[in-house]
């Protein structure tokens, strides 16, 4: 059954996490491959348009590029999402909100750093307002360079993430 973990770091106002006992059991067996097949084919991403890359993010989910083909659909609630896409400039003011979104997502969860701003600060690396080195805060699995990257690049990023999940080398789950 679900066990309460009192040593979990407390996030202001939000969550207390339980572990799913079934998944703990499955991790030790070969069934993990089946699970990973399911997980990699059903990556729901969080709609979190933050900047220039945000429009490309929107376009990717829509008719022309249609990530639904791969089972990748946008979700509005962080509770239903598996992938957080950091799609733009993380400012000092926005970082707490982004962290909260990340904490609200149930694990296993993954991060894609989409665009130069999320990777290194992009053209705004020297600004007084933006926060640099976001990859130190979030366990980023895939980096997508470009300013902004094209939609194809985002789809490619999802493929890379799928490959990582299949090879059990992603940072979102503990094996």
């Amino acid at each position, binding site marked *: 059954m679900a066990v309460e973990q009192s040593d979990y770091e407390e996030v202001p106002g939000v969550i207390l996490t339980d572990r799913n006992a079934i998944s703990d059991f499955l991790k030790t067996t070969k069934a993990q491959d089946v699970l990973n097949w399911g997980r990699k084919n059903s990556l729901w991403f969080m709609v979190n348009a933050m900047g220039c890359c945000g429009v490309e993010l929107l376009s990717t989910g829509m008719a022309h590029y249609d990530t639904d083909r791969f089972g990748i659909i946008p979700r509005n609630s962080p509770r239903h999402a598996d992938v957080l896409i950091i799609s733009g400039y993380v*400012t000092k003011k926005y970082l707490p909100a982004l962290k909260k979104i990340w904490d609200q997502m149930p694990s296993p969860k993954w991060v894609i750093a989409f665009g130069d701003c999320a990777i290194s600060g992009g053209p*705004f690396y020297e*600004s007084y*307002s933006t926060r640099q080195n976001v990859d130190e805060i979030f366990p980023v699995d895939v980096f997508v360079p470009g300013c902004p990257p094209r939609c194809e690049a985002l789809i490619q990023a999802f493929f890379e993430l799928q490959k990582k999940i299949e090879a059990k080398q992603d940072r979102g789950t503990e094996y």
Partner: protein
Amino acid sequence: MDEKVGPSEMIVHLGPQHPMMPGPFRLNAKLRGETVVDSEVEMGWIHKGIEKILENKTYLQGITIVDRICYLAALTNEEAYVGCVEKLAGIEVPPRAQYIRVIMEELSRIQSHLLGMGEYASFVGFVSMFMYTIRDREDVMTLMDSVTGARVTHSFLRFGGVKDDLPEGFKDDVKRVFASLRKAVDSYEELYSSDEIYKSRTVGIGVLTAEVAKDIGVSGPPLRATGVAFDIRRDEPYLVYPDLDFKVCVQKAGDVYARVQVRLDEMRESMYIIEQCLDQIPDGPLFPEGTAYGRRTPVMRVPAGEVFHRVEDPRGEMGFYMISDGSDKPYRVKIRGPVYPTLQGLPPLIKGVKVADIVAIAGSMDTCTSEVDR
């Protein structure tokens, strides 16, 4: 907003991550039941400090930065910035470059309106419409891509000209895309005007009267929807707009439906403008001849002075105030975005409406948070 909550009232924080905006933005709304009693907008979630960055970049480097003020209107932002420098330095842009600029800026207007309109449709629950407009937008994006080599942030304009000439066969591509786009725009209009549910959600909702709109400082489609024919392209012409035939699209009602209708009309006007440009465009150089200006002007000193230059953004009046002290970097650049006052006027506009209408009204303003925050 008063933080005190009365009986049967609650404060809902919409945002900063919320599907109602393409960008972080927060609306603290005090609700009584489903009705908004009071509200307040919080900004700055993606404030990038562009004005400070521009002070520390050379003029040419600045072009890439101003691109990213508003990602849906990159070319008009560039036009405002480049126009400032050209006014200060007294650069004459050759006619061919001017025409290319107009073509690109109008294309950018079309794609921005398509996104704004489609997104708006999804706010009233019409998700399929969003898909259709994005599909058509991709065609326009491909056109822009074929000229500038980028989809969103172009860095296409240069002081005194443009980076590249139109590619071969561009006119045919435009003809082909516009033929289908015209049909699409007509079908959108028909869909909108024939759908009773859509009409009941939009007609008479979020009415902005001309007086209030002027007081708030609104510009662009939301203002034109109230009956004020205020368009920088007509009132303070730049580039070759005086030579072109176009009308300022105006609606009377000032409600949500009228705003969307103005955007639809403007897309048609933009297509008309582009076709005129393609017919009239003269041959010639892309940069003023006999000067040092070209695709690369690495170090460029601009004479000291101050200038305010404004252009018509897809969302309204985009102005740059530039102060130069004679060095290779601007002394101070102020960016006046069109959405800034519009978003400021949101709280009085949504007072007394239902929760579902917050989204409808905010969406119809076609706001771009990135530009408000800069």
